[in-house]
């Protein structure tokens, strides 16, 4: 394609030599719509503590209701929305019953705004805060199809139903590979709530917001629902091998996998001579990790020779750590028939993340792997563009050379003239 453009540009420049606008492309950058419409489940805490009147002088519950009404009005058409409550029904003291108190208020599907609003209006602050079970329930509601899924969790208190750690629940849901993100919103959160909610968000690549005002709440929930509507490419789940032999064969595309601390994962990609392999890998730090970390992506031949590597290291707070590599396989000169046509390139992904002993290592951290195969680059015969020169030294050198050539030529012809005269 570039060849064509290059020719076109060359011709244009020669003929016209003044137009700047070459090969205009259309302005919009919109992508084709996703195949399955995205799903969002709003999970609302209706526990007793939602009675507290500390958001714009109103109770947390009424702030949440108002925000829900605004959000329900603004939900994009293509989004399938559901609502689930936690702590809405059981007012008693029995912990076991209180911790099962989560209910699907409105099923995930095309939205009937009046119906959904009516359902929200009936809610009254009641019971416990079983976040873990509510997340499991929400994940069930969303199903396991290929659509992108988002859970928006709105709560004002930490989970009161230990030992089921909601953070671990979130990580396990995410590890199912169903493209699920959990965003959390804390209403006037205390330190423990914040810690738990940030942990849940981090575990699934979601965001955490602390809310102190009604308009903040509705704006943020609306933003999150809109985000769910953005079409994105959904990666394909794969499982890398422990060594190159037997590793999964990848075609160009986007893949996800999981890798624990210090583990190596291998993949194979076929590459024809004259093609270029481009691979990049991102490892998400989805849990509390130690401060210094790294990632290494290596392209290795089947015989174990390293071709090229990409590596990256970092420290401090991060969401992902990424690196990439490029491997242009030279075009074949002669036709040596005994060689196989395509070379198998092994890609090895390793990481040097570590975590304090209190952090669970399984399931592993999410990996995102992109593999592209393009045509090989035009080979360069010189460092400089077309071997051209530039700068005053070049001008000086050329002028001097020209001058000397002129002198010599002049002397030569004088000498020849003199010789001709003497004969």
């Amino acid at each position, binding site marked *: *394609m*570039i060849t064509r453009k*290059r*020719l*076109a*540009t*060359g*011709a244009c420049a020669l003929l016209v*030599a*003044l137009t*700047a*606008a*070459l090969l*205009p*492309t259309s302005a919009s*950058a919109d992508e*084709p719509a996703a195949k399955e419409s995205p799903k969002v489940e709003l999970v609302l805490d209706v526990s007793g503590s939602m009675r507290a009147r500390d958001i714009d002088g109103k109770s947390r519950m009424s702030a949440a209701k108002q925000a829900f009404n605004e959000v329900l009005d603004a939900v994009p058409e293509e989004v399938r929305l559901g609502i689930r409550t936690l702590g809405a029904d059981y007012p008693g003291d029995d912990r076991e019953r209180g911790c099962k108190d989560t209910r699907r208020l409105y099923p995930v599907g095309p939205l009937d705004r009046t119906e959904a609003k009516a359902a929200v209006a009936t809610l009254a602050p009641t019971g416990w805060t079983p976040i873990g079970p509510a997340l499991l329930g929400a994940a069930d509601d969303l199903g396991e199809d290929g659509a992108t899924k988002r859970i928006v969790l709105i709560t004002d208190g930490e989970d009161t139903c230990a030992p089921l750690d909601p953070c671990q629940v979130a990580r396990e849901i995410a590890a199912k590979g169903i493209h699920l993100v959990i965003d959390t919103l804390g209403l006037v959160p205390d330190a423990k709530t914040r*810690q738990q909610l940030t942990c849940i968000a981090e575990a699934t690549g979601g*965001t955490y917001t*602390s809310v*102190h005002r009604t308009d903040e709440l509705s704006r*943020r929930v609306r933003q999150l629902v*809109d*985000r769910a509507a*953005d079409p994105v490419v959904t990666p394909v789940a794969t499982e890398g091998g422990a060594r190159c032999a037997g590793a999964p064969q990848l075609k160009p595309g986007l893949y996800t996998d999981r890798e624990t601390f210090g583990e190596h994962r291998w993949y194979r990609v076929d590459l024809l001579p004259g093609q270029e392999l481009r691979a990049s890998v991102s490892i998400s730090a989805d849990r509390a990790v130690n401060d210094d970390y790294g990632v290494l992506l290596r392209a290795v031949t089947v015989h174990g020779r390293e071709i*090229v590597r990409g590596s990256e290291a970092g420290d401090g*707070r991060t969401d*992902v750590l*990424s690196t*990439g*590599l*490029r491997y*242009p396989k030279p075009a074949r000169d002669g036709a040596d028939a005994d060689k196989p046509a395509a070379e198998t390139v092994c890609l090895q992904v390793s990481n040097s993340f570590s975590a304090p002993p209190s952090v669970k290592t399984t399931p592993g951290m999410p990996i*995102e792997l*992109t593999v*592209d*195969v*393009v045509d*090989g680059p*035009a080979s360069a015969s010189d*460092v400089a*563009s*077309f071997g*051209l020169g*530039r700068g005053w030294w*070049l*001008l000086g050198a*050329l*002028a001097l050379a*020209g*001058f*000397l*050539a*002129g*002198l010599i*030529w*002049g002397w030569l012809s*004088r000498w020849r003239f*003199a010789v001709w*005269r003497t004969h």
Partner: protein
Amino acid sequence: MRTARMLAAAGLAAAALLGPAAPGALADTPAPSASAASGEKAAGPTEAGTTFRTAAAFRPGQEATAQAATGDYLYWVFPADTGERPTVKATVTLPESALRHGPSTWRVDVYDGLRRRQPCMYGSQSRSAAKETASLELACVLRPVRASADAWADDPLPGSYYVRLTVTGLPEEDLGQSFSARIGVDVSDRGGRYATDGALAAPLVPGATTAEIAEAEEQADRRTPVEAAAPEDGWSSGWWSDRWLWTAAGGVLAALAGIGGYALTRGSGRPSRVPPAV
């Protein structure tokens, strides 16, 4: 591919040498997408992505804005082409200082289309804001983008560039507060100083494919990822650099100097011993 390029180049060189008007006119052609006016900025996207995959696309000269919660990782993506040196500028409007508990450190990182982190030549990529500070400016000047690099180098190549903006250090109780960010990219044209030979078959854009597949996509009237991620005027062909002018000028100078040198040896045009009329 190479031959076509050479032919175009040869034709161009001829045009530059022969037509006295040509060099002047040619000087207008380079950098179709470079150096956007830095004054007023066109509006860009008003939301940012949260991962590489969902990064919000904008073009140099546009201003992208976003509202988010502290602790979020915001991603944008912009195209940069051969010969350009992009400068990423970010302005963060921090949450109300009454809600904050201490200083925070913000950081902008730039990654290329292969998600390799790109170093900043100049600019404060990371800055700390005191508790009272209302806003913060970050900048990152990338290295000039080259037409090609060997596979073992991580020189910037034409393609997509990702910008990630996040807070890297803050008191934990300040997480999740709302802030807004503005981000823009200015591009300066670095001329032929970094014009290298060779060219990528496709710019470093995620989802780039071989020419065959791209052609099939085009025939099916689908926009290829490479086209979707192109700068306003499309990806440059990469044959132009001001090295053509320098070299051509050098050639002309050498010819003139040659004539001069020749004239020197001749004096008035004939050897002095030769009588005026032979």
